[in-house]
């Protein structure tokens, strides 16, 4: 499939992320057992579930950091599972934020935001810097442009990582447990930035343990367990009034851990 027709297709209003029949195994261990997900433009989808349920693997299959064994992934008109796809080009429109931030340690905050703009998108230095500063402003770290990543707190590093992904002007943003590595008092700043991003209409796929965030910000929640999507729907339904027993058990453990431990 050519990129040109693909982009036209996406622009015409179909889902921006379309995952069909996705399977992924690591050796003998089958992690994803047939996943179908579609995300509309501007939608915020939160993926919740116990650890080992395949949430992160699913997210990493969306930009093919993990190669799926079968099934198709179409993002913004690019079929990423097509062997002939220009993968580097396809990834430009998919921003990714990692649990461990992964800022480039040898580059200043500003250079972290401009390096891919210049080397990948071939933007000139002035334009790249303008966009970088605009996005730093957006995450509230305009004054840190000259700092090195190691001089920042975890929460600040994660906000820089978000700004770095935004500087590529992606069509969709992936968040892989963005607050799991943070000290509790730093979580709020990062979630605040993500909430503003959602309000601005960014399409987001978020793997998270923050039920409060999922409840308030998500348009759709997927509950995954054992490599399948057990239940999906609006947060009021999946988190507020789950139909499946597995969802209920998981939620009771997450929302009330002390009580759940007693009744185990």
């Amino acid at each position: 499939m050519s990129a040109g027709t693909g982009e036209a297709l996406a622009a015409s209003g179909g889902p921006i992320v379309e995952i069909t029949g996705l399977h992924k195994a690591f050796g003998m261990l089958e992690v994803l057992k047939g996943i179908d997900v579609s995300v509309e433009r501007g939608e915020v989808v939160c993926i919740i579930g116990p650890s080992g349920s395949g949430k992160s693997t699913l997210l990493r299959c969306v930009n093919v950091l993990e190669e799926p064994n079968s099934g198709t992934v179409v993002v913004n008109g690019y079929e990423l599972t097509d062997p002939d796809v220009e993968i580097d080009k396809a990834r430009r429109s998919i921003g990714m934020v990692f649990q461990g931030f992964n800022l480039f340690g040898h580059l200043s905050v500003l250079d972290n935001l401009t390096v891919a703009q210049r080397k990948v998108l071939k933007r000139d230095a002035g334009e790249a810097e303008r966009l970088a500063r605009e996005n730093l402003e957006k995450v509230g770290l305009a004054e840190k442009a000259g700092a090195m990543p190691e001089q920042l707190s975890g929460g600040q590093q994660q906000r820089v990582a978000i700004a770095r992904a935004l500087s590529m002007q992606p069509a969709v943003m992936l968040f892989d447990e963005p607050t799991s590595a943070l000290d509790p008092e730093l979580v709020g700043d990062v979630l605040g930035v993500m909430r503003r991003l959602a309000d601005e209409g960014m399409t987001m796929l978020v793997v998270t343990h923050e039920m409060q965030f999922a409840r308030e910000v998500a348009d759709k929640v997927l509950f995954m367990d054992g490599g399948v999507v057990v239940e999906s729907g609006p947060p009021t339904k999946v988190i507020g009034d789950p139909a499946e027993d597995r969802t209920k058990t998981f939620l009771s453990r997450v929302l009330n851990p002390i009580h759940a431990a007693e009744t185990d």
Partner: protein
Amino acid sequence: MPMSPRKRAQAFRGVQYGILVLVVAAMVFFANWEKLGNAFFDLEAMSTQFPGIITTALVNTIIYTGLGFALGLALGLVLALMKLSSVAPYRWIATVYIEFFRGVPALLVFIALGFGVPVAFQIQFDTYSTVAIALGLVGSGYIAETLRAGIQAVPKGQVEAARSLGMSQTRAMVTIVIPQAFRIILPPLTNELILLTKDSSLIYILGLLGTQYELAKFGREGMNATNSMSPILLAGLCYLLITVPLGYLSRHLERRAGRKRDEGLEVTA
């Protein structure tokens, strides 16, 4: 009566000082200082070595080492990438190469290159090329292992972040991984340079002309000419002129890297 640990440590320190004093005293009393002075510290014999020992020998040693290190670095980088390659035969070739050139004495490599290759392939390099290739081959094995360790020390997440921003594997390697690997391995790499400086003393085996002498050869020729050991001592001091500053540089880089890590920890803690 058993001594307390503190008393014991004190007594042990005393013994160490005692040994030191004894050794120094023995050297002072028993060494033949007059003969030693005549043989090694003959200033007249030393003065005949100037300015050649600086303008020719020291300069040549630096040029040979520099050329060899540059080639060793280029070769080492290729080998390190081969060793990390997903193509198995590349890994095997790199492993065999590294094991071979790390395990064989430099002198043998020089002999093989200086006499074996011209016979085998009917080609004759000029001296500078031969020296650069010889030292490059010897250095590349060590440098490759250092580089590989450096590249592997860069967290995998760095490549993932780069790829997720649309960089190709090569672009991510060049722009993100290798610069960070070099920051990690700068101190051990400086040590490789010191080792290579000393290995350059073995290239006399290739048969050098007078203007091509490096320090060790120059010193030995001076020894023959003046009938004194002093020129070789002078040559030794000239090596220190190169290696001691490099050692300081290495320690400085190590301290700086260490301080950066500590600062990093402090801020995130």
